[in-house]
């Protein structure tokens, strides 16, 4: 019995075990310890597995020693190892921040429950990425969704309750669509193992139930990843959730859904079924462009900064889906790199917004007047993340946009390059609204004495901002892994 072999199972089991421990301990300090230990251990495990996959190829783990097509398989390859590292890394940074921020935002007797829900949400997200079994994926999806409804409902504002309820309705419809899709595939293939399903589907990609399954899965997963017309739940959920929750969900939840979409499109249905026989390329291209422009425009007119950047998330999802629609190695590289880059950018941004909210008591544009004067570091950090959203060279956002433009040129679609640049100008507009409020207005009289955010909030936020800059300068981790993963998805040697 070698612990090293069981890393894939431990990845999911550790946070899962920490959740009931936190509930049983009840005490807000005692509950924090096991969850923090599990989260950091999960991050360490994901790094170990990433190194292992880089050296010796994909890891396949048979849960309970039942051989793969029958038992549940955990599969770690170049794509899932990157996502595991992203999700657990973001969690490892956000959780200590959460401890400092929920002191202000959540009633003390609920703190233990917050940690439990956080651990469950992390379990679900890691599970979606690591599992190689279609039904297991649905179960993990529901674990992460149910816990995220609770996390959102913990927000101070009563609108958090309505946001959580609406998210629950949308989330359950989405989950049911995914179960229908998986059910149809199971009826056709008689297997639930994703890789096995992919092999068996090769001969029957034009059968009608398979196409129906593709439709159900596309709609279901698109709801979760907030693809443009299906994004209605996202702005409220992000705006009214506690700051730590907004940051965690913004950085991970939609990214994991993109992973699920990639997995179903490229590993199960195969790109010929999705992109050659159906007009999915044009379909996704149009939705991505609509999301980029409509959501960015809506973001410009928001008064609440959290809502503003929530709409910006919908727009950034557009870039991610745009990369998928190219159906080329460069396009997918851009998609996967942008998953990581946008996650650290938006994660850092929401952490800083939480710090600003702790100081200023709210983050409507009118309230953050003079933020640059009273909280200079926080305001500067938000601007740095804003630059990454725009895609200024030297930040992470630039790298992924660069690859998107390369992919567009590869396909000879010059007009798309102009559209990508034009949508970046919209990002300039909404980031500028913050800059104007923070630097060109005097702070309100009652807020002039506000000081810089405490270290407990500032340090995790700056780790994320640092990562945003780092991934903009050194692309070996993000683009390197993304290119390997893209090559694997499209089955070309890289």
């Amino acid at each position, binding site marked *: 019995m070698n612990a090293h072999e069981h890393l894939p199972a431990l990845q999911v089991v550790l946070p899962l075990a920490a959740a009931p421990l936190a509930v049983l301990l009840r005490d807000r300090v005692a509950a924090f310890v096991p969850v923090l230990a599990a989260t950091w251990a999960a991050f360490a495990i994901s790094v170990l597995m990433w190194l292992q996959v880089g050296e010796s190829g994909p890891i396949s783990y048979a849960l309970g020693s039942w051989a793969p097509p029958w038992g549940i398989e955990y599969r770690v390859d170049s794509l899932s190892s990157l996502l595991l590292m992203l999700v657990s890394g973001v969690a490892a940074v956000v959780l200590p921040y959460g401890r400092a921020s929920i002191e202000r935002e959540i009633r003390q007797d609920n703190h233990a429950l917050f940690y439990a829900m956080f651990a469950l949400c992390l379990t679900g997200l890691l599970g979606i990425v690591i599992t190689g079994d279609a039904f297991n994926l649905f179960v993990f999806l*529901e674990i992460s969704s149910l816990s995220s409804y609770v996390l959102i409902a913990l927000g101070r504002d009563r*609108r958090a*309750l309505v946001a959580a309820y609406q998210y629950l309705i949308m989330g359950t419809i989405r989950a049911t669509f995914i179960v*229908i899709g998986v059910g149809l595939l199971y009826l056709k293939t008689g297997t639930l193992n994703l890789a096995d399903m992919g092999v068996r589907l090769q001969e029957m990609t034009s059968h009608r139930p398979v196409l129906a399954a593709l439709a159900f899965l596309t709609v279901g997963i698109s709801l979760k990843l907030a693809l443009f017309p299906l994004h209605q739940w996202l702005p409220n959920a992000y705006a009214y959730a506690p700051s730590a929750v907004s940051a965690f969900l913004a950085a991970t939840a939609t990214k994991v859904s993109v992973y699920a979409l990639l997995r179903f499109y490229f590993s199960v249905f195969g790109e010929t079924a999705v992109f050659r026989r159906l007009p999915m390329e044009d379909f996704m291209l149009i939705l991505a462009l609509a999301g980029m422009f409509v959501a960015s425009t809506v973001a410009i007119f928001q008064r*609440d900064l959290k809502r503003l950047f929530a709409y910006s998330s919908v727009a950034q999802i557009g870039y991610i889906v745009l990369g998928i629609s190219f159906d080329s190695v460069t396009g997918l590289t851009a998609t996967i790199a942008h998953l990581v880059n946008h996650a650290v950018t938006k994660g850092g941004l929401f952490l800083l917004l939480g710090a600003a909210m702790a100081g200023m008591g709210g983050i409507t544009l009118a309230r953050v007047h003079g933020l640059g004067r009273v909280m200079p570091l926080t305001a500067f950090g938000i601007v740095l993340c804003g630059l990454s959203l725009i895609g200024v060279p030297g930040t992470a956002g630039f790298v992924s946009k660069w690859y998107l433009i390369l992919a567009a040129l590869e396909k000879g679609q010059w007009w798309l390059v102009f559209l990508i640049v034009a949508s970046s100008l919209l990002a300039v507009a909404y980031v500028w609204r913050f800059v104007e409020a923070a630097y060109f207005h005097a702070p309100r009289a009652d807020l002039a004495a506000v000081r810089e955010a405490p270290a407990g909030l500032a340090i995790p936020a700056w780790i994320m901002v640092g990562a945003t800059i780092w991934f903009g300068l050194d692309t070996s981790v993000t683009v390197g892994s993304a290119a390997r993963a893209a090559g694997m998805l499209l089955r070309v040697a890289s």
Partner: protein
Amino acid sequence: MFAHIWSHFDYWAMLFLAMAGLFIVIARGNLIKKLVGLGIFQTSVYLLYLGPAKIVGGTAPIVDAAFKVYSNPLPHVLILTAIVVGVATLALGLALVVRIREAYGTIEEDEVLRRDVQPAGEEAQQ
């Protein structure tokens, strides 16, 4: 045509339940009724799994010389999990409705949304 519908009876039942449930979720403003619709929608999917798993004349999958035809037990196990998920969702949804009623004093969706629009300006600062 009729024979076709009859032979695929469980699919038609599933389709009817799914559409009825989804319709209730979309058309009703009462938060509890929405959850009822959601429950019906979720339940319809159980039929999609369970219907095809039943094989006429099939027995439980216990290896025995006397029986040749077995029903597939896996969908039942899957749906057992799905039922648990459905129960958890419903419980959480109802808990949220209780909290919404405490905070707003109503469980009608448009009423809830209207009560949030009024405190405009510096929105409901705390």
